């Protein structure tokens, strides 16, 4: 390097040169941003949007007011609102740290070691785990929703010591809804001492019958417990809050299910704010699912898929020429994530969540290319 070159290397760029460089960088960023396609995650059953700011504000307010104290054990305000919403006595409703936690507590309360919990299969993978944690046995009853009540009654008659039946309606991962009439038939024909734990975490998305159908059955059937959640349609899975509703004389059992130290005040505040000021949000989400679900089902069926009649915010689909895992892998390469059926009980299937119109369009286009 020559003498002058040595000093010239310390020359800074002029303002014009710097600005030109910055403009080029910005243009490059824009080009990249336009060409980048975000991954569409349809593998989860939770709602994809962030919580409404009103809910976050309510949580923040409670957090600032004082986390140094224990929450109000019975959650009277939230219970009152929920009881009014469902038209039941607040004493018949308890809060828990998510519907799953309450289901686990119910299983522990109902099953003695060695006794059996019956569940349809495929269904929510937590149910067999609940039975195991209660030192009981899980009996899986395979088959579609049609005839499932008969299959369950046969299993109850066949198995020696069934104490409870865990049913998800709509069922995860199949999305099938157990109709109120069928549920009533099951309750009427069950022997004494067998309780039904009805997990309705996804019931807000169903349009085949009113979401209150099962709660109306509580008046006549004391062995029925209904579990609801804020994790799915309300989009508050992170708060871990759900509730259980029992019949008129279920107070003693419900008291056994309630968490020892209550539910976090933050969770209660979020759920209360959601009920109080975001009901329209729930309605919009449900309407979106109601619009998009038939499109997804019809679109997949036209592409040769066997799709269950889902009443949830997802569909359970199988292609005769493609395993669920292979379909998930091919869709992942196109930036669409779906849940392969291997981990959910049926390897041939895949569970595909429903989001928006744009997501449906992208999904169907990706599936078409994947086949």
């Amino acid at each position: 390097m020559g003498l002058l070159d040595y000093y010239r290397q310390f020359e800074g760029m002029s303002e014009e040169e710097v600005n030109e460089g910055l403009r080029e960088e910005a243009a490059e960023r824009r080009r990249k941003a336009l060409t980048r396609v975000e991954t569409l995650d349809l593998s989860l059953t939770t709602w994809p949007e962030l919580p409404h700011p009103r809910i976050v504000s309510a949580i923040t307010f409670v957090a600032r007011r004082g986390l140094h104290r224990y929450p109000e054990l019975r959650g009277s305000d939230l219970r009152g609102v929920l009881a009014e919403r469902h038209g039941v006595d607040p004493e018949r409703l308890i809060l828990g740290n998510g519907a799953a936690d309450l289901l686990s507590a119910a299983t522990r309360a109902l099953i003695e070691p060695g006794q059996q919990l019956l569940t349809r299969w495929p269904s929510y993978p937590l149910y067999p785990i609940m039975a195991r944690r209660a030192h009981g046995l899980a009996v899986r009853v395979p088959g579609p929703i049609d005839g499932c009540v008969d299959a369950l009654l046969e299993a109850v008659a066949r198995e020696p010591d069934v104490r409870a039946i865990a049913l998800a309606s709509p069922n995860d991962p199949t999305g099938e809804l157990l109709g109120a009439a069928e549920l009533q038939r099951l309750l009427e024909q069950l022997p004494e001492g067998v309780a039904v734990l009805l997990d309705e975490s996804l019931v807000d998305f169903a349009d085949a019958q009113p979401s209150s159908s099962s709660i109306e059955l509580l008046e006549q059937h004391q062995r029925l417990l209904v579990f609801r959640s804020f994790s799915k349609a309300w989009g508050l899975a992170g708060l871990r809050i759900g509730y259980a509703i029992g019949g008129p004389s279920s107070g003693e059992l419900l008291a056994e299910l309630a968490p020892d130290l209550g539910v976090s005040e933050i969770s209660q505040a979020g759920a209360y704010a959601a009920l109080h000021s975001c009901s329209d949000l729930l309605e919009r989400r449900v309407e979106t699912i109601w619009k998009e679900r038939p499109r997804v089902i019809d679109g997949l069926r036209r592409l040769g898929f066997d799709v269950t009649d889902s009443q949830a915010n997802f569909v359970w689909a199988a292609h005769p020429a493609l395993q669920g895992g292979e379909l998930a892998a091919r869709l992942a390469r196109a930036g669409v994530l779906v849940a392969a059926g291997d981990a959910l009980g049926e390897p041939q299937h895949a569970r595909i969540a429903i989001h928006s119109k744009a997501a449906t369009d992208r999904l169907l286009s990706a599936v078409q290319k994947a086949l």
Partner: protein
Amino acid sequence: MRSDPSDNGGLFVGRRPGTAPVRFRSLPQRGSDVRQRIDGSIASFMLAGITLLCLLCWGPIPLACLWLGSQANYLTGSVSLGILVSFAGLFALLFGALALMKRIDGAWILVRRAAGHDQRAGVLGRIFAATAVVCALGFLLWFLVIHGPGTGLVTRGNGS
């Protein structure tokens, strides 16, 4: 509660003017410590040179131009030509000196950076202003106290 130090409520968007770091086309390769010290000395000499040139602008160059004009007047007998020569010489020399100083100032910035300093701007403007003040004060001292007509004015003022 604000806990993020960069959260200024939108009062200062972007960088404070004049604080942008120098952007090089490629990262300079600095010389050894000895070379940097030598560069520091060279920068000091250049600064002295700029100062000297500035001082020339406020006295010697105008005087030299007046002398040239007087010589032209003497040789041709034309006052107009003398004035013309004086002004032409003054403009040529002053602007020439300023152009030279500007180049030295630019080179001084590079040498200062080579010496390891974060030198972002030149120093010519400040030196030009400082020498103007010094020369003006010197002229007033000469004019009022040492030799100029000011002494006569002061004496007449006292006499009346």
